[in-house]
């Protein structure tokens, strides 16, 4: 480690400056607003609120708890499946075979088209009149006219699949990059020692991927928790608030009812939940000791 005292600070200075103005300050503002009555449509009632917003949220707002619950369910299902499928995929395209480059490019391609575009594609695919299910029904598979996004029974799997489509490649890319860093000698040595394929995976691959897995699941979990664009455009949180996540609820409060104070309180609550879970996760995985 170096003795030069000022070098690291000089190196991180531009990042710190950007983050201070465009991240730290806005966050501070949100916390400040959460303690205010701040509704753009009822300016006469605005002013210091103390913990009113939080009291309302925790005690008298079933939609807060429902949306928080759905957010948690969404994150657990999405991140779990994305990690599992991403790992399998990374292991597959890490092998040597003809057409591997092309297979990689194709497999990873949905990751490139996220956000509004993903939604557009899945709107086309799910639309009841000319979508994929209508097509399948015309071949005698399933029933015609099914609206998977409008039916409470199918809306969850339908949105999960759409998000998996663009989320799995993210894991696959990160894990593949890390897989490539494993020295070949380790596998050769393990093979010489008579390790089976499964043992090589468990004793060489997994320990090496540990940090990448911990970090990517954490980041992805946070992203999935805060993800707005897909659900907002695909279902709008419906049917009957079934797919309303906490950030969607926040967006509705802020954009539709201009209740910035209450919206800020919801945001603060989400932030606290994420922070708590993340610290717990880092502790449990012993990542913070490194």
């Amino acid at each position: 480690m170096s003795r030069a005292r000022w070098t690291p600070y000089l190196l991180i200075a531009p990042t710190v400056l950007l983050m201070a103005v465009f991240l730290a300050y806005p966050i501070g503002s949100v916390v400040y607003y959460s303690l205010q009555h701040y509704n753009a449509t009822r300016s006469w009632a605005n002013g210091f609120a103390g913990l009113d917003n939080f009291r309302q949220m925790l005690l008298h707002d079933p939609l807060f708890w429902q949306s928080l619950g759905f957010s948690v369910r969404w994150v657990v299902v999405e991140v779990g499946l994305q990690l599992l499928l991403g790992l399998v995929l990374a292991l597959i395209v890490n092998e040597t075979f003809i057409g591997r480059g092309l297979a990689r490019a194709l497999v990873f391609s949905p990751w490139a088209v996220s956000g509004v575009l993903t939604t557009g594609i899945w709107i086309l695919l799910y639309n009841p009149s000319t979508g994929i299910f209508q097509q399948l029904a015309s071949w005698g598979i399933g029933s015609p006219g099914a609206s998977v996004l409008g039916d409470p029974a199918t809306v969850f799997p339908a949105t999960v699949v759409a998000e998996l489509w663009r989320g799995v490649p993210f894991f696959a890319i990160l894990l593949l990059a890390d897989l490539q860093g494993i020295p070949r000698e380790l596998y050769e040595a393990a093979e010489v020692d008579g390790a089976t394929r499964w043992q090589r995976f468990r004793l060489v691959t997994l320990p090496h991927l540990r940090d990448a897995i911990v970090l990517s699941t954490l980041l992805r979990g946070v992203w999935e928790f805060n993800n707005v664009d897909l659900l907002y455009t695909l279902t709008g949180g419906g049917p009957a608030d079934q797919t309303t996540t906490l950030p969607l609820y926040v967006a509705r409060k802020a954009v539709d009812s201009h209740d910035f104070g209450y919206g800020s309180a919801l945001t603060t609550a989400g932030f606290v939940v994420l922070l708590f879970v993340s610290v717990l996760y880092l502790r449990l995985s012993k990542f913070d000791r490194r």
Partner: protein
Amino acid sequence: MHDKGRLARLFLPLGAYLVVTLVPFYWMLVFAFRPTGSTALVPWPITLDHFRTVWTDLGFAVFFRNSLIVALGTLVVVSVFAVMGGYALARFAFRGRRAFLLALLCSQFVPGAMVLIPLFLVFKATHLLNSLQGLVIADSAFQLPLALILMSGFVRNVPVDLEEAAMVDGCGRLRAFLAVVLPQLRPGLVAVGSFAFIGSWNNFLFALMFSGRQDRFTLPVGLSYTLGEFNVDFGALAAGGVVAAVPVVAVFAVIQRFLVQGLTAGAVKG
């Protein structure tokens, strides 16, 4: 026997996954190229009407140019800052390092949707509203934390011995960095740079909020603004989607080959 194992282990799951991955793309292409009203699965004869509508009538040519400028600008800013900061994190023990790392991680918890209001006021005060530069700065600020975390990982994977050897040979830290470390970081730079480019290309919220003028719209905003029409005109939605998707997918395909090369070449032998 060996080949049978590979078939079950590699090619069957890969093939199944490829089908699931590609069907949505294909569906979009079908809608984009077939005439309105047709339900053919293979669009023939192909029509370019939807693209004409989208490119000229709906102004996607301008949105395309704006998206390109913003995404390239973000790529440059993020790459330079991430290498600087990532190197600092990986190679120096300095006061406040943990706090900085924690700040980077915490920044990932911020829902972009809610900091929009304070951010909007910051942009107004700094006269960055309705400017492509403003979008570059905002995108960079949000992309940087992750880029820095990733980049510090890539730097840590470059053996310190290499640098120390160069410094023993009389190089200064900067020269040792430029001559020894930077070339090793090439795959990392490709990864971080492509993350930044694609992240910025697809960023919807900031572009929507910070550009109120149509000549400053990026592609996602253009797509969403005509969403009302898309409810009836699936052809235009699909064509707009293709216009927005083709560049990133193409860039990604190229980058992806380089990424693989770089990663395999990056395996260091002393």
